[in-house]
């Protein structure tokens, strides 16, 4: 049941993975439990560190919006993304145009090859 999966080139064993994961998890939790638990809740000792500034009340002001995630990735691949997003115009008949182009391309090449 909990068997190994033999691909032609190697194998994957669920039981061994879970065993190793359990050992590593146990080690991590033991390390985490070595911390101090004599802090006072709700005072300054419990607050996050925000570069020494006053932490705002609303979480809205601290969080990084999702549109700025992977900003560097997007900026580095700017030419590629401009062309790719330019292709997704959102016009309904463009999809039909692409479909006809693909079928025409395949038809021409299958008759040649």
């Amino acid at each position, binding site marked *: 049941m909990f068997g190994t999966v033999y691909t032609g080139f190697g194998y994957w064993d669920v039981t061994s993975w879970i065993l190793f994961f359990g050992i590593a998890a146990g080690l991590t939790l033991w390390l985490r439990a070595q911390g101090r638990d004599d802090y006072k809740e709700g005072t300054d000792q419990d607050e996050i560190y925000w570069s020494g500034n006053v932490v705002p009340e609303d979480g809205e002001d601290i969080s990084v919006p999702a549109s700025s995630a992977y900003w560097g990735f997007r900026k580095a691949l700017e030419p590629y993304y401009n062309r790719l*997003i330019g292709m*997704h*115009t*959102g*016009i*309904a*008949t*463009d999809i*039909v*145009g692409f479909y*006809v182009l693909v079928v025409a391309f395949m038809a021409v090449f299958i008759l040649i090859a």
Partner: protein
Amino acid sequence: MIGNAPFFVVGILFLAALVAIFMEKNLIKIAIAISIISSAVNLFLVALGYRTGATIPIHYLAGEGTVMVLPTPQAMTLTAIVIALATTALLLSIIMLVYRHYGTLNVDEIRRLRG
């Protein structure tokens, strides 16, 4: 060659309507073009079943003819016509709702979902 005329008509209709779909800007014209494509395909199916000099494919009414037209494509065509009817009706009601929301029937302006 003259016997192949229906198939030439099918080809011309299909290609004309296909070009119309991505050249036209008005949604109603695009819906009409889709309807023409359905008609072309139905014509193709009916024309497939014809045999030269044959009579209708009903046994008791055939008369003296011994060769009958194939009935299967006729059944296929009837089904395809009904399906095209349902789809055209739904497509037209969707276009009507699009007009109510967007105020325009121009395909280039109905693109709030893009990117």
